Structure formats: structure tokens, C-alpha cells
């Protein structure tokens, strides 16, 4: 007998005495009591949520910090060679004017920079890479379609240069633009926030151009304008919205429209409006085609062919003194997304072109551009260049000072062949020396900088003193290299010849490469005190949650108010304390305050729990151990990159294991009906789990042992045609499945018919229509030739239609769905019949022949008298009133809520994801039935026979909430996601909207990403309500729900804490940014989402459901 049931009985006992006094007043009182208790429970959960958020933000502020930003700017007149004049020698110093070139003689007056977003290197390289591998494979839709780059570079090696261009992860456009203009390594903070940029404060190329008084024109992606507000020529620049990935053409056509007039008329209209020095044209079509269709799609072919034409035109109309730069900012993974650090995502393209002979080659045997991104030269070095190398290269070519914090090195080819095309090693040695000197100056400044210089965030300022990694990354090896280079320079000055200069250039080059490598290794500047304090309070809050969820005695909702009070007091005193000791703390005031407030809250709640004599929540039963281990083992396994990578398969394994044990437990039931229901549902649960597992989206690390099935192919992000059948299948089957579960307990009545039978089905139909029309759009099914010429059902028409459908779906789900949920009375029906004891039962396994012996057998007359305010004594004593659907009144009413959210969630999924979410909904229903079959029936006291009484009580164990959480995690992977940034389906933001709109667009992406988690969190209260006696005390029910909800959140909290600790522990691991950090971010975001949904949707819904049932059956 559990606490909830005890409460229920005591509640009933007291209510009996109350009723004698004044039934209506007493009932009203109980209703008010319930609502107050419910409100306080919500407040308590919100408080715990705040504790978690506090801990997570402490940790993340320490973890995601990377490096200090120095705000010094390089000046034209201050060449870095003057830093140590004695060491370097004076006469070779820079000239110091913009006309001739600041630190080095300039080569070009103007530049046209064309950024083709996501231009992967294998798009530009010829395919197959060598004649030997002709039989390799037929070319894909992205091969050999932009040949101009390779052709030009191969045929006119003095005029053009094509190189693989390796991005530093994260490979998001915003981060890449920062790297491409500042020349320094990225910070990860903004990696996920592709939605909004912020102005770059660090010294950068665009800023230098502005300082030099150059007129910079920007065309295309508006990320530039948010990074460099006020830097661009106001009349000539045209920015376009960058995030509408469904739109392949607006940006590109706009850029082309403005770019070529500028290029052609530049000479004739000189001095007027068309006067420019640098044009930055950013094309987005290739990137959007990748996101929307994947690279292996005809749309990509068209786009690349269009880019080929753009580059050809730009080459032909390029003025003599102008440098043309064509580059990608990152690549794309096999299905066209990016953000991570897989090879394909970082391998981009750089193409330089000049009408004059300008480029040379360091290795005369290697004239042809690299055939693959990772091709090596004769000395074994990769021929690719890091993206930041463009910064010093462009700066020096245009005669600008190198941005202050640049870490890149000049691209040798751009300085070797000046004018003649013959190797000019002295020139290269000079630019290398200048660049190295600037890097050196930066390091000196960096290590000497007082910590107040930091600009990254105010809070960091004081924290750096204690940071373990703050020492500037100038190791001994680096120092040695620097000195060696300087010595060689001196030697070469005395006896100049090409070989000596070459040696010098190579030594400086080594220094710069080594420096970059050192920085890449070491420059993640973790703030350990912040991280540890975050971990500390997170662990504390999880332990408190565990105590509350599984250890506390008594009514879980009843103890919430005192705990809340103590917690609040603790938090208040904690924040008060922070005023006193903020001087002593290694953290800034804000963080000290957060830390102490959260700790105070934890201490407060713990003291409350201790006063309630809670036990340590160690598992005591078989199922307790199963739940404990099925959460603990994954938590531990997240410390292994292999287990993290294969999490989806491991979850399948653990879910099936639980399912098999549930099957065994169901087979043990002595009640034949319980046994049958439990067994049947367990088997269905197992089969559905394995069926759902067939939907896979592989992450790069799983290759080659994994085959993606989520999209049409591994190189696509569209659905194949057979997958389009899934939404239609769901339309036909899913309402019937839900109906089956409702009808089994005779609850398919009233509003349930209207909602599930009509509204739900129609909405699913509309969703299927939506995705059909989306596929029609993708596949250009409606475009073709007809008698009347080319018919073209405009993409716009289709899009408008789709958006309308999507909005209708959402409004049906939320407006109609919530209206039904809020106002529907319980789904019961009343019948009068002659007394026949066999028919009084309300549930039966087959739903038709209800047998009294095994089912809810209630005294109908009593129930009826409490229903009606004016009690009608049963008219004829011979007749009996039968309430159909009595046994599951609570559960079926509450389950409307998951179904209505299901519609919104399913709309945002791709067809395959819709299938797995439908399976998930069915699995949840199965789970509810299994747990009920393995729990004592509400009427088991009527059977004194010991042999019949159930031997398990799973409803009061942690099984339900734990399995729901594991199911949600499992389905996260089955809805086409992975614990990687690149698997985020950004396009979900555009399902019901045409453009980015805050806050809706990020919200839609969250609904898409965490759909299974949201659905399962909403389903948690159903565990306690399914097939529960409607006349159980509302307080008892609330307690059960609170306990289940707390357990459910505990699972997520445990995973979040485990991943947080492991990310901190493995912060120097090679796989940190590739495996551990994305998993950690996923864990903490998931925790937040689940807690918010659990409180705002599920717990609020409980109030409605219990209320609507109690209005009928009496409070």
C-alpha cells in the first residue's frame, strides 16, 4: 500500500464526515484546497527549475568561455617590426602609408570578395579526382558543376590559385565570418546561436578597411551587417535575410543584380555613386540548397552551375588592379548541413584570381591545384590552407595592417609570384616576418594584458586570475622557433640569395603554424571556479530532486509548500550572504550571488526533507534497481565517446531489456485479464520499439556501420516517395489506435469522439497534405510542359498554400484542442438497466463482455447520488444505473492533452519522424496499460483471495517515469536527430512561417528537436491517472503525479549532470567539441525544455483534468 492510496483513504474518511455537515460547502472547500495545493506544487517545481537553471548557467559561463578579446587595433603607421627594433633590424620596417601599403608594399588597390556559402572543396575539384579512379563511382549531382575554378587555376597558374580552405569549427556562417575577418580562433559560445549575430569588437579586416577610408560595398547575407554595422557603403550595399533556407534564389539573384553593374561601370562612373574599393558579395543559394535538399540533388546542380556563371562573369569583367577572391565559409556534411567539425564540413574552397600575373608556387612540381581537400605536397604537408590565412594575405595584398589578433599566416602562393610569376622568396620571407612579428606582438600584449582588458563578458574579468589555462600559449618550442627565425633572417640579410630567403620564409612559416597549433590545442580558456561551482550546485539540486522524488515520505504534493518555503528562505539568505562575502569570492558578484542563492535553496529544501525523515533513495526493489541502473549506466557511459556516439542503439537495447522484463512481470500476474493485457501490450511495445529503431540518421562517427534511413538517401535531406505514405498511414491508423485504447474502457464517448474521431483525424490529414505539397515543391512535380506552354504552379503559390495549411493545423491543435480539453466533461455515459450483476462492470478486457469479478465494480447508486446536487433516488429499485467508462475517467480525459500537443509536434517533423512519433504515442498508451496491469486494481480489496491480488505495484514505482524518459531519448534519435549541432533541423522554423519571427522561430525549432521529450513529459501525469478510481482523493492523485513528474525530471537532470561533469572532466579530450560538448548541451537544454513543459503544460493540465472529473463525481 503506497502513500498515495493511504492519503486517498484518509481523504475519503474526512470527506465523509464533512459531507454530514454541509456537503456543498465542504466540497467547495476541498476544491479550493486542491487548487491551492496545486498552485503551490507548481511553484515548487518552478523553484527547482530555477535551481537547475542557476547551476547550468554557472557551469556554461565557465565552460563556454574561450579567450580574452584584446581591443587593440593595428595601426598603419605602427609596424610590428618596431616592437623589438634591435632584434629585428630597423631598415626593413614598413612604409606606413595606405597609398603604398602600410607594413608591406601593396599589390592590389581593390578587391572583389565573392563568398559562396558552403562551397565544399569537392564541388570545385574535378571528379573523379584522378584518371586512375575513373571507375570509382558515377559523379553526383554536385560534381564537376563549377569547373571554372579548377580550369582557371590549372590553365593560368600565374593568374589564379585554387586551394582547399579549412575552416575552424564551429562551421556556422556567423562564426566563420568572424574567423575570416579577424584571423583568430572562434569562441564556441555563439556556435548554436546561428539566429543572431553581434558586432565584432576585435580588430578585423573590415574594420581596417573602414579605418583606411576604403569604400566597402556589401551584397547578400545580412549576417555581415549585424557583425559590422555602419561599415558598409550605405547606398550601394544590399543585405538580404539569411535564414530562410527554403528560399534558394532571392539572395543570389539580388546579389548578381547589383554585383555586375558595379563591376562593369566601375571605370566609367568613377567618382560617382558606383565608386568602390572592396565588394563583398555573399551568395547563399548553395548553402540553402544543401540544407533543404542535400548536396546530391538537382537543385544543387542548378545552383552550382549558376555560381560557375557568376565566377566566369566576374573574371571577365575584373579590372586590372583588382583581386578576385572566391571562397566558401565552410563545407557541408553528407546531407547538406553544417555546424560541426567533420571533414566534409570544414573543407571549403579558396580561389584567388588576378588579371595580372601574380601567383607563384613554392613547389614547381605541383602546378595543378589539389585534386582533393587533403592532398599533400612532396614534403608531406597538406596543401590546404586554414581559413584564417586569408586575413594576413588580404591585408598585405591590399596594403592594410594585419588585424591585431590575427593568427593566420600569409598564403605563400600569393606572395611568391608577384608580377613575374617566378618564385620571389625574399618577398615571402618579408611578409612572413611581418606577420610573425605581429603575432608575436599580440602574444606579448596578451600575456601582459591586465585582466580588465577582457571584453568577452564583464563577469569574466576578475575570474581569470584563477584560471588554470590563462598562461599564454608560448611554449618553449615556440620561443625557440621564433629566435631561430630571427637568426636566419639576419643571416639571409648578410648573404642574400633565394635559398636563404626560402629557408627564412619556411622558418617563419613553421613558427606561425606551430603557434596556431598550440593555440588550437590550448586556447579553450575554461573558467574552472565557475565550472566547479556550477557542477557543485547541479549535483546538489539533483540529489535534492532524487530525495524528493524517491525518498520523501508522505504526500509529495503536501510536502511541497514547506519545502518551497524553506528553499525560498535559503535562497534569500544565500543572496544576502553574497553581499557580505562577495569580496572574498573568486567569482564575480553576479555569479557569487547566483551560486549562493542556488546553494541556499538546496540547503533549505534538504533541511525540509530531513525534517520529514526522508530515507536515502537507494533502490530497494527489483524494479527500483532496474530504473536506477537504466539511468546510471547511460550516465556513466557518456564518459566514453563510443557509447555517446552509439547512444541510439544503446537506448534500443536498454528499452528492449526493460520491455522484456515487463513482459516477464506481466506473465506473472495471477489475474488472467491483467496477464493478458500486460503481455499483449508488452509484446506490442517491444515490436514498436524495434520498428521505430529502423528510422536512423547516422552521425559521421557511426560510419560505415550505419545506414541513414531518415531521408531519401545519406546525401539528401528530403524524404523519399515511400516515406510520404507514412503521414497518410498515420491519418488512417492512429485515431483508430487511440480509439481502441479509449473504447476498451468504454470511454469513447462525447467529446472524445469529436476530438479523436474527427478533429484529430482531419488535422493528421492536413499534415499529410502539407508534406505532400512540400514534396511536390521539392521534386518540382507541378512544373512541366503542357499544351499551353510551360506550366508552373508557382513555388510561391505552393508555399502560401502550405503555410496556410500549417497554420490551420496549429490552430486546430491548440485552439480547438485546448477548448475541448478545458471544457469537455468526462467521457462517460450513463445507462439504466435491469440489475444483472454481470453487466455492472465498466471495464473488460475485450470491451464487450464486462465481467464483474475482475473489473471495477462500483456501487453505482452511490456514485450517482454524489453526481447530482438534487439526489434522485433510483426510480425503480429493480433498475440499476450503469456508468460506462467510469474506471478510466481520469486517464482518458487527461490523455487529450498529449494528443493535442502531438498534432503540433508532428506537423514539424519530416514524414519519417511523423511515423516514429506516432509509434511513440502508441508506445505510451501501451506503457500505461502495462503499468496498470502490473498494479493492484482499485477494487482489489474486494477480493480477499490472496492468490488473485497482484504481486507487483509498478504504478508506484519509478518504472513509468523512467521508461518515458528513456523512450523520449530514444525517439529523439529516431526523429532524425543526433547529439550534434549539424543535425538541428533549422528548416522546421519555416513550416508555418515565411520569415524568421521571434520568438516563434526558435520555439518551432525546439518543438521539432525535442518533440519526443515534450510529448513524454506531457504524458507523465497520465501514468498516475490512467485507470485510476475517479473518486480517489484529489490530493492523493496530485501526490502521485508530483512524484512521477519529479522522477521523470530527475532522469533528465541526472543525464544533464553526468554529461556536464564528463564534459568538464574531458575538457582536454580530442573529442570534446565533436562528441562530449554537443551531448552536454543537448542534455542541459533537454532538461530545461522538459521542466518547462512538465510544469507549464502537464501540471497545468492536471488541474483541468482532475477538476473536470471531480465536478462530476464530487470533490
Amino acid at each position: 500500500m503506497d502513500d498515495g492510496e493511504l492519503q486517498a483513504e484518509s481523504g475519503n474518511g474526512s470527506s465523509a464526515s464533512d459531507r454530514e455537515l454541509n456537503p456543498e460547502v465542504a466540497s467547495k472547500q476541498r476544491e479550493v484546497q486542491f487548487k491551492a495545493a496545486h498552485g503551490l506544487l507548481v511553484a515548487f517545481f518552478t523553484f527547482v527549475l530555477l535551481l537547475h537553471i542557476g547551476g547550468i548557467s554557472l557551469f556554461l559561463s565557465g565552460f563556454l568561455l574561450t579567450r580574452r578579446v584584446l581591443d587593440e587595433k593595428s595601426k598603419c603607421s605602427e609596424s610590428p617590426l618596431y616592437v623589438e627594433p634591435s632584434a629585428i633590424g630597423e631598415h626593413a620596417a614598413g612604409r606606413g602609408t595606405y597609398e603604398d601599403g602600410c607594413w608591406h608594399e601593396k599589390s592590389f588597390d581593390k578587391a572583389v570578395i565573392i563568398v559562396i556559402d558552403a562551397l565544399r572543396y569537392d564541388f570545385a575539384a574535378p571528379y573523379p579526382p584522378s584518371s586512375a579512379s575513373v571507375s570509382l563511382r558515377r559523379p553526383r549531382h554536385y560534381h564537376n558543376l563549377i569547373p571554372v575554378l579548377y580550369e582557371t587555376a590549372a590553365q593560368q597558374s600565374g593568374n589564379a590559385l585554387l586551394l582547399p580552405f579549412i575552416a575552424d569549427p564551429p562551421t556556422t556562417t556567423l562564426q566563420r565570418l568572424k574567423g575570416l575577418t579577424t584571423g583568430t580562433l572562434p569562441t564556441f559560445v555563439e556556435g548554436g546561436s546561428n539566429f543572431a549575430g553581434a558586432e565584432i569588437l576585435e580588430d578585423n579586416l573590415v574594420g581596417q578597411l573602414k579605418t583606411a577610408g576604403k569604400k566597402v560595398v556589401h551584397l547578400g547575407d545580412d549576417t555581415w551587417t549585424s557583425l559590422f554595422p555602419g561599415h558598409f557603403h550605405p547606398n550601394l550595399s544590399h543585405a538580404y535575410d539569411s535564414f530562410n533556407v527554403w528560399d534558394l534564389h532571392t539572395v543570389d539573384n539580388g546579389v548578381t543584380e547589383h554585383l555586375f553593374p558595379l563591376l562593369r561601370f566601375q571605370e566609367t562612373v568613377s567618382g560617382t555613386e558606383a565608386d568602390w574599393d572592396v565588394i563583398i558579395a555573399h551568395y547563399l543559394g548553395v548553402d540553402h540548397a544543401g540544407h533543404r535538399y542535400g548536396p546530391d540533388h538537382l537543385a544543387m546542380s542548378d545552383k552550382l552551375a549558376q555560381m560557375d556563371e557568376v565566377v566566369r562573369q566576374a573574371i571577365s569583367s575584373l579590372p586590372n588592379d583588382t583581386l578576385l577572391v572566391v571562397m566558401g565559409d565552410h563545407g557541408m556534411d553528407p546531407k547538406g548541413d553544417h555546424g560541426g567539425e567533420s571533414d566534409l564540413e570544414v573543407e571549403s574552397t579558396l580561389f584567388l584570381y588576378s588579371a595580372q600575373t601574380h601567383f607563384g608556387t613554392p613547389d614547381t612540381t605541383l602546378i595543378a591545384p589539389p585534386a582533393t581537400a587533403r592532398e599533400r605536397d612532396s614534403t608531406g604537408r597538406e596543401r590546404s590552407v586554414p581559413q584564417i590565412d586569408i586575413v594576413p594575405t588580404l591585408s598585405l595584398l591590399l596594403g592594410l595592417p594585419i588585424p591585431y589578433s590575427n593568427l593566420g599566416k600569409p598564403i605563400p602562393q600569393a606572395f611568391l609570384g608577384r608580377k613575374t610569376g617566378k618564385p620571389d622568396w625574399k618577398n615571402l620571407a618579408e611578409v612572413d616576418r611581418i606577420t610573425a612579428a605581429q603575432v608575436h606582438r599580440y602574444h606579448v600584449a596578451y600575456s601582459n594584458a591586465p585582466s580588465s582588458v577582457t571584453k568577452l563578458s564583464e563577469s569574466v574579468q576578475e575570474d581569470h586570475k584563477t584560471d588554470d589555462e590563462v598562461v599564454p600559449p608560448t611554449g618553449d618550442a615556440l620561443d625557440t622557433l621564433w629566435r631561430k627565425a630571427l637568426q636566419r633572417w639576419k643571416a639571409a640579410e648578410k648573404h642574400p640569395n633565394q635559398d636563404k630567403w626560402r629557408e627564412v620564409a619556411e622558418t617563419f612559416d613553421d613558427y606561425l603554424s606551430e603557434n596556431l597549433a598550440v593555440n588550437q590545442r590550448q586556447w579553450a580558456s575554461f573558467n574552472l571556479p565557475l565550472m566547479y561551482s556550477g557542477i557543485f550546485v547541479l549535483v546538489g539540486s539533483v540529489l535534492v530532486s532524487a530525495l524528493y522524488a524517491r525518498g520523501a515520505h508522505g504526500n509529495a504534493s503536501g510536502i511541497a509548500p514547506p519545502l518551497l518555503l524553506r528553499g525560498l528562505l535559503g535562497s534569500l539568505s544565500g543572496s544576502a550572504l553574497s553581499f557580505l562575502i562577495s569580496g572574498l569570492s573568486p567569482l564575480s558578484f553576479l555569479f557569487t550571488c547566483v551560486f549562493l542563492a542556488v546553494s541556499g535553496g538546496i540547503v533549505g529544501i534538504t533541511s525540509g526533507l530531513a525534517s520529514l525523515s526522508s530515507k536515502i533513495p537507494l533502490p530497494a526493489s527489483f524494479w527500483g534497481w532496474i530504473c536506477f541502473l537504466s539511468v546510471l549506466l547511460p550516465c556513466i557511459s557518456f564518459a566514453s565517446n563510443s557509447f555517446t556516439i552509439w547512444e541510439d542503439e544503446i537506448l534500443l537495447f536498454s528499452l528492449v531489456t526493460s520491455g522484456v522484463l515487463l513482459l516477464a512481470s506481466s506473465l506473472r500476474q495471477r489475474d488472467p485479464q491483467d496477464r493478458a493485457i500486460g503481455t499483449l501490450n508488452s509484446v506490442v511495445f517491444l515490436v514498436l520499439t524495434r520498428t521505430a529503431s529502423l528510422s536512423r540518421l547516422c552521425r559521421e562517427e557511426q560510419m560505415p556501420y550505419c545506414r541513414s534511413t531518415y531521408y531519401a538517401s545519406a546525401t539528401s535531406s528530403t524524404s523519399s516517395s515511400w516515406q510520404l505514405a507514412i503521414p497518410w498511414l498515420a491519418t488512417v491508423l492512429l485515431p483508430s489506435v487511440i480509439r481502441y485504447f479509449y473504447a476498451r474502457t468504454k470511454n469513447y464517448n462525447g467529446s472524445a469522439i469529436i476530438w479523436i474521431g474527427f478533429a484529430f483525424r482531419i488535422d493528421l490529414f492536413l499534415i499529410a497534405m502539407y508534406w505532400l505539397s512540400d514534396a511536390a515543391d521539392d521534386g518540382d512535380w507541378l512544373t512541366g510542359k503542357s499544351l499551353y506552354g510551360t506550366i508552373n504552379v508557382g513555388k510561391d503559390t505552393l508555399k502560401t498554400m502550405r503555410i496556410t495549411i500549417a497554420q490551420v493545423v496549429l490552430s486546430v491543435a491548440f485552439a480547438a484542442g485546448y477548448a475541448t480539453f478545458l471544457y469537455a466533461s468526462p467521457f462517460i455515459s450513463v445507462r439504466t438497466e435491469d440489475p444483472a450483476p454481470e453487466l455492472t462492470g465498466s471495464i473488460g478486457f475485450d470491451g464487450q463482455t464486462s465481467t464483474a469479478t475482475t473489473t471495477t465494480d462500483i456501487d453505482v447508486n452511490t456514485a450517482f447520488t454524489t453526481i447530482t446536487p438534487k439526489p434522485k433516488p433510483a426510480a425503480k429499485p429493480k433498475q440499476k444505473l450503469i456508468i460506462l467508462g467510469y474506471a478510466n475517467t481520469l486517464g482518458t480525459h487527461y490523455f487529450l492533452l498529449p494528443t493535442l500537443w502531438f498534432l503540433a509536434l508532428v506537423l514539424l517533423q519530416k514524414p519519417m519522424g511523423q511515423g516514429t512519433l506516432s509509434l511513440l504515442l502508441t508506445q505510451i498508451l501501451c506503457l500505461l496499460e502495462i503499468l496498470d496491469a502490473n498494479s493492484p486494481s482499485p477494487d482489489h480489496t474486494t477480493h480477499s483471495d490472496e492468490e488473485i491480488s497482484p504481486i507487483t505495484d509498478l504504478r508506484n514505482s519509478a518504472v513509468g517515469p523512467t521508461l518515458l524518459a528513456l523512450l523520449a531519448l530514444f525517439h529523439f534519435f529516431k526523429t532524425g536527430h543526433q547529439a550534434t549541432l549539424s543535425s538541428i533541423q533549422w528548416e522546421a522554423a519555416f513550416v508555418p512561417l515565411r520569415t524568421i519571427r521571434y520568438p516563434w522561430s526558435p520555439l518551432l525549432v525546439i518543438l521539432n528537436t525535442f518533440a519526443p521529450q515534450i510529448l513524454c513529459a506531457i504524458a507523465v501525469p497520465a501514468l498516475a491517472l490512467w485507470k485510476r478510481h475517479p473518486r480517489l482523493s484529489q490530493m492523493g492523485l496530485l501526490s502521485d503525479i508530483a512524484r512521477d513528474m519529479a522522477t521523470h525530471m530527475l532522469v533528465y537532470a541526472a543525464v544533464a549532470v553526468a554529461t556536464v561533469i564528463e564534459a568538464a572532466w574531458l575538457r582536454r579530450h580530442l573529442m570534446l567539441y565533436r562528441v562530449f560538448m554537443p551531448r552536454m548541451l543537448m542534455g542541459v537544454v533537454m532538461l530545461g525544455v522538459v521542466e518547462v513543459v512538465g510544469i507549464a503544460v502537464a501540471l497545468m493540465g492536471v488541474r483541468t483534468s482532475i477538476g473536470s472529473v471531480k465536478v462530476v463525481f464530487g470533490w
Partner: protein
Amino acid sequence: MAPDAEPKVLQSAKPVELLQSQPSFFFANLQPILLLGTLLFSFKSLVADPVHTLLGLAPTVAIVQAIYCVVCLPSTGDVAAPTPKPGQKKKAVKPGQDIWAKVIPAFLSFTLTIVLSAPLLYIIVILFGAPLTTHHPHTLLFALHLALLTTPHLYYVHGLDASTWLRLASLQQPIDESYGMSLGACVGAWVGAIPIPLDWDREWQKWPVTVVVGMYVGAVVGKLAGGYLFKGWKIKLA
């Protein structure tokens, strides 16, 4: 199933004792050595060519299991006999009949193992995440071996009594040597799956080497644990 029938069924659930004879004890102790020895002997070829090795091993294992059934275990009919008294038994049945009374159940047990258990276990192994579209021979042979290690002795001892099999499937049967061996094989195979995803790049990590090894080791451990340590225990699923 009538409720009042259940108590009787529960009462009849007793751990199965081995036959009290010299050959019986001898072979009961030899069997684990034989099983592990075969595995150890063929491990290299198992890693190199799992399909052929498993195929080749199957008859050997079947014979070992068959001898174990015939020599060590009481067949279905004998279970009711309260305490095996060899002397009495010999008087009751002639030696020739005795042999046939053992060989026929054994034969039936192995038929059932192959036509019933192996396909069922194949489905279960697939449910646990074994490859569905590839590696069919691997998975089938693994299921066959799993069936050989888990079910023949159960068929031999318990026959096809529905209530007994319900108890076996729901883990209610008291642990004895043969049931322990079956459970041990399942748990061992379960544990054997754990190293598969690790990125150690070892040849033996391939499907189904680890689970086969885990299964054999688990079967032996389970047999010993069931026969000595946990004899008579009942698993509590509460």
C-alpha cells in the same frame, strides 16, 4: 485458467535435481569444460569466419547438450518422482526401455529447440537490435546456439506443460542447474553486446563474436551458480 488451480501449480515448482548416478555427476561436471573448451579452441576461427565456425560448432554443442540431458537430467516423466532411488528404479523398468525413455524425449527436445526455440530466439535477438537487413546467417546461427544452450534441457525436463513454461518465461521457476544455465546464457549474451560499440577497432568486436562468447561463458557460470549457489532461489520481480 481457474484461480484455484494456481496454488497447485505453484507448489509443484521445485528445483530439478540431477540424476544420482556416477556418470551423471561425471558428465555434469565435464559439460562446462567441454563447452568452454570448444569455444576456446575455435575462438580464432570464430573471429575469422563466424558463420562457418558457428555452423561447424552447432552439432558438437548439440551432442554435448544431448548427452547432458540423457545422462544427467531426469526426463519429463521422472520429475514427479520425489527422491530418485536408483535401486528401485532399476527394478521398475528394464534397461532397454530405460534408454528409449531417455532418447526419445531427448530427440523431441532437440527437434523443438530447432523448430521452435531457435526462430523465437531469432526474433528476440532482432528485437534487441541485431541487424535486421544484413548478417542473417550470423544472427540465425547465434540464435541457434542460444537455443541449444537454453532450451533442450528445459524441454527434456519440463516437457511442454503450459503452466511450467509460463513460470519459466516469467522467471518464476526456482533456479536449478538447467534453468540457471539457460538464464546465464541469456544474461551472458546480453553482457556480451556491451563491448560492440567501443572504438577499440578489434577484429573480435564484430557481430556476433562477443555475444557468442558472452553466451557460452554465461551459460557455464549460470549452470554452476544455479546448481550450487542459488539453487532453489526464486527471482523476485517486484
